[in-house]
């Protein structure tokens, strides 16, 4: 039995190889859930006038990921226009970015999350490691408040991943 107790997100690597990626450290939170296209991952299959289900229907499913940053991450700190999602290449050719404002988004080929466990151990959650056509950025939300006492001004990205995470 392996028990996992997470403390925080150390960093998130996004790009297309182990050598070609951004290492994002200002992570407010990272979250993962399983989404099933028809509601739940499995549904009971019952006959009319029967009480005990005769089996299960297995639904389509995928992972939905959320990454909240405080605020955004730049590939060049001297240029505020260099938001990582618009300037960090994510495909093997090094030519496409996670978000295209005027076209289809390109699949992200490298997406690793490193988390710190309670005892300092680093655990890596591997969603894409030189994998094509499995992980896309599907949303970006920027939120700012001038309300008194606000400490974080988050930018939250959503992703869809079509394969299982590898924990290492």
């Amino acid at each position, binding site marked *: 039995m392996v028990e996992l107790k997470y403390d925080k997100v150390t960093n998130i690597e996004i790009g297309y190889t182990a050598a070609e990626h*951004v*290492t994002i*450290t*200002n992570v407010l939170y990272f979250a993962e859930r399983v989404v099933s*296209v028809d509601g739940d991952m499995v549904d009971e299959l019952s006959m009319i006038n029967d009480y005990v289900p005769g089996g299960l229907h*297995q639904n*389509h*499913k*995928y992972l939905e990921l959320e990454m909240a*940053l*405080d*605020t*955004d*991450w*730049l*590939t*060049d*700190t*001297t240029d*505020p*226009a260099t*938001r*990582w999602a618009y300037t960090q290449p994510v495909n093997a050719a090094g030519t496409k970015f996670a*978000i295209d*404002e*005027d076209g*289809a*988004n390109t*699949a992200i080929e490298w997406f690793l999350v490193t988390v710190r466990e309670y005892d300092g151990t680093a655990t890596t959650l591997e969603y894409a490691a030189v994998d094509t*056509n499995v992980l*896309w*950025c*599907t*949303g*970006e*939300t*920027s*939120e*700012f*408040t*001038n*309300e008194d006492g606000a400490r974080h*001004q988050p930018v939250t990205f959503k992703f*869809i991943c*079509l*394969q299982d995470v590898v924990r290492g």
Partner: protein
Amino acid sequence: MVEGAIKLKSIASVTANTITATNILTFKEDFVMNMTPQFMPNTYQGLGMLEKSKWRQVTFTLDSDSDVFDASYSVVAANSALGTSFIATFVVADAAGTVETWTYTHGDSYVQRKEFGRIEDGARRNTTEYTIYMFGVKAIT
């Protein structure tokens, strides 16, 4: 070239139709991407992604209201695009208070919603919320 974070500490103003409002309480920009995973029958893993249109929804809450969008919505006529500008200005959390601006394509920006502006005796905030629908690109400087 060094990568790193940028931290914006506040929103300074919103400018539309060459009028600037500074009484901004909250700002939210949602880049909506219409993307759906595709599946074959009798498979569990998705095969790829169907991608359709994209747009941004920018929502401001003001304390209390402003006339910045007055020329861009009407109940007796079609809403027109924001006339001459649509800019959000932020303050960077550095010692100098550097300013950052997000300039939207104003000709592709429309007032989509104006929610209840509630004025209540004794309330600390009496807010009004506008949502702007925007397609096209955003420039950051």
